[in-house]
């Protein structure tokens, strides 16, 4: 099966599995809502009776932002720490979701339900968490070590520069290297997860090796599939931003429209996440030597 065919099939298949998308989106929404609640309550309390709320309808008005920043000047840690803990908590939740989604996708004959979703998540969570711990240093290498390496390799070139371009070019190369390395690590991690789902008996390390071996044989096709999905995601994102950009007025109805649009975009993000897993799983199944 060609990469393009897999992409097309996964498109339809992931749409069919919309309950998985909905559950992940709901998790994200509820989590974000509860994380922002303290700030929302504070703003409502401080601004609700003020005429300032009218200026919040403008595209951008710095007065109230400055007011808010000044009100929060001494209590920022009160906001940051819950935010960071929430992020970590959400990370764990997402590992569970990944396990649940991949488990459910693998059991494609079963009908999606909340209980099967959680059953799959619970069954696979341990191995997925171990895989996360294994890949964490690889992500750090991709996001921190490699860019630092580019910096040190190019420092002479930047140092001898007579204008800002070498520095800017190095920045762009660094960003490119970071993105490439990240996508590779991310792809390997995906196939390791898929290997773990495909074979209930193997542990995290063997899953990693299986995924790695698989990619060793199929790297370029797998990578092409990965980027096809990334490009699809980018197209959806640009479409969202263009649509949002069109809305310049701020009537109450339009605020609702924008909110709905944003949530549709979030749904798309999770749908594409499911599609990622679906496509890569199909690719794995089609090319894996048993």
């Amino acid at each position, binding site marked *: 099966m060609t990469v393009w065919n897999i992409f097309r099939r996964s498109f339809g298949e992931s749409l069919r599995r919309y309950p998985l998308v909905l559950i992940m989106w709901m998790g*994200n*929404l509820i*989590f*974000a*809502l509860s*994380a*922002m609640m303290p*700030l*929302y309550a504070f*703003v409502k309390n*401080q*601004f*609700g*009776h*003020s*005429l*300032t*709320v*009218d200026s*919040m*309808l403008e*595209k*951008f*008005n*710095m*007065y*109230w*932002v*400055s*007011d808010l920043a*000044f009100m929060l000047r001494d209590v920022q840690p009160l906001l940051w720490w819950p935010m960071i803990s929430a*992020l970590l908590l*959400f*990370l764990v939740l*997402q590992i569970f979701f*990944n396990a649940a989604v991949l488990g459910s996708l693998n059991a494609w004959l079963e009908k999606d339900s909340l209980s099967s979703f959680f059953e799959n998540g619970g069954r696979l969570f341990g191995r997925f968490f171990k895989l*996360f711990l294994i*890949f*964490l240093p690889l*992500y750090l290498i991709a996001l921190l070590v490699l860019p630092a390496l580019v910096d040190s390799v190019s420092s002479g070139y930047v140092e*001898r*520069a*007579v*204008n*800002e*371009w070498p520095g*800017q070019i190095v*920045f*762009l190369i660094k960003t490119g290297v970071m993105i490439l390395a*990240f996508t590779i690590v*991310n792809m390997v991690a995906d196939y390791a997860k898929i290997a773990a789902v495909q074979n209930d008996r193997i542990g995290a390390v063997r899953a990693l090796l299986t995924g790695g071996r698989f990619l060793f044989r199929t790297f370029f096709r797998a990578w092409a599939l990965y980027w096809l999905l990334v490009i699809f995601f980018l197209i959806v994102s640009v479409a969202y*931003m263009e649509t949002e*950009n069109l809305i*310049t007025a701020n009537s109450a109805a339009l*605020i609702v429209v924008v909110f709905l649009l*944003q949530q549709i*975009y*979030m749904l798309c*993000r999770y749908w594409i*996440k499911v599609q990622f897993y679906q496509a890569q799983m199909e690719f794995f199944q089609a090319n894996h030597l048993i």
Partner: protein
Amino acid sequence: MKQLYITLIFFLGIGLSIALAAPPDVVQYKIDVRLDTSSQMLYGKEILTWHNLSNDRVKDIYLHLYWNAFKNEESAYLSESAESQGRSNHSGHLDEIEDAGWIRLKQVTLSDGRSLKEAMQYVTPDLPRRPGDQTVLRIDLPEVVQPGGSVRLHIDFEAKIPKAIARAGYYNNNYFISQWFPKPGVYQAGKGWNCHAYHYFSEFFADFADFDVRITVPQDFVVGASGVNTERVVNDTAGTVTYRYQQNHIHDFAWTAGQRFIKKERLFNPDSLISEDEYRHYASLFNLPLDSVRLTPVKLILLIRPEHENQIERHFQATEQSVKYLGLWFGRYPYPTLTVVDPPYRTGSSGMEYPTLVTAATRPIIAEEGWIPDGVIAHEFAHNYWYGMAANNEFEEAWLDEGITTYSEDKVMQAMHGKTKMIVTFGPFPISRYFDQIRYSSWERARSSALHIVETDPVVTPSWQFYDIYSYFLNVYERTALNLFTLERLLGKDTMLRVLRTFQSRYRYRHPTTQDFIGIVNEVSGRDMRWFFDEFFYGDRLFDYGVGSLVSHKIVPPIGVFDSDSGMVVVSRDSLEGRTEPDSLTRYKTIVRVRRYGQARPGGDVRIKLLVAFADSTTETRYWDGRKRWQEFRFETAARAVYAQVDPDTLFLLDANLANNSYRTETKSAGINRWAGKFLFWLQNLLTIITLIS
């Protein structure tokens, strides 16, 4: 074989003597300096003549030797830099020892040849003392300089150019040379020499002077400098070229040299940029004859790096607009030339002001209407008014130059582009597509940061005595700009322009102080505004007024036991039931309590204004002196109150909380929900991005 070119001093013929009303220059410099690019050295011969214009008998002279700030870690500059980074000694600037800079006086003699070598001593006038600092040198003179007399020093100096640090230095064989020559402090009659050390965050102070400087550089170097280039002498044997620059009535001299400059010239032609109507408008505004608001041509010289060649037009336009508006507002720019330098890469010299020479700052790709480079050029050129001509002591009262300049820059940017556009960049690329609707006014920007340091230091604080570098920058730039925008609203835009124009013309070629500025404000406005400066320039207290509470009720007859001619009358709640009055007779009682949340208060003739708006579209206005902590206002009206607002015209931009200035009886949350939705969305995206690694 020497060739001699005498450049004609272009169209004005004798462009060097300017402004009839200017006082005589205090100092005369004749400097001959050679740039040695192999050793990064300057070799200079300076003849310095200092005139004693005071009635004091002066027995010594103080010289700034600024580059010794970069000599070793005992300098005030490097110790303060290290301390401000929370380190003990190493600021990091001298990690490569060839990065150091210094200046050494090899020989100092009087005109008769007597050496003053033995009479020289480094002094540390500022507290806390840094005994190792060598940026101020005192020379005891063998004879007293009598009032009206003068002293002439012949100085032979050599200076090691630092690797780009604090506005000066070299990088890759490109040079920006500022604060480089021995320069006397300012002698203040009755008080003595004002000559501060070079501090980590402070700028400079010098007397007006007549400069005649010869700069020798390799032949392939392009040079830009303060003043007018009057001579060019090529020496083929040495492979050098010597440029001569002259200018009087300026108090500093900077220059740049490098191989990577495109040099362009253009004439600022007021006739094509300013209409008769504009002249008439300002003539009547300032109550001046039409001819005295007219501007004169200026030769604009742009030194720009080749990679910014496509920005030449943009640089010239920003310069022309700055020369136009600042000239119309504050009086004509009197010098024949203005040199704008797109400074050599990494010489740390961007965005700096020198008399008749300013440095810009730009990016490889610039956005339309962005602050870069227009705002930088407007700012640095405005400094030629506030620092250049009204030459305050930057060490002691930095707000007078930086603050008024920031305010002026904001006015020019407003005139050019309206509100400032927010520019977001990815690497070299501006991404304006999704952000170009985000615009903000200068006072909004100034307020956003200024509020945070009001309670840290007063604006009027010696530069090196601010709590930290943020307090210095935010106080003298942003808080001052915010204060001036507030003052503009209290006085009115026209009066504010008259204030600044009067301040400029009264103190041009002089050294004004904060008190001088206050004097002009009071004189021009005809009001006593001392309180404003006491509170917001010398003070460090937050200003915050707000509506504490607002209640508005229908007036109902009271119940209870009442005396009447026929004895006691009982009015019970029941007896009132069912009694209906026509709507036209219904009255409402409204009680507003206005609070002073901050410590700062208005004074003089300024009052806090309270506006109450009612459901029938009527309004009531009250005024309060704002002295007490709170004040109650009562209204009996035909309609219920809808909202109450203090300072409804937002005169006090520096109010620390504008949200509490108004109180509406019903809450509205559409705006809050809009931003909550946006915030939620970003948070949701953040969560998905972070969990890409899961």
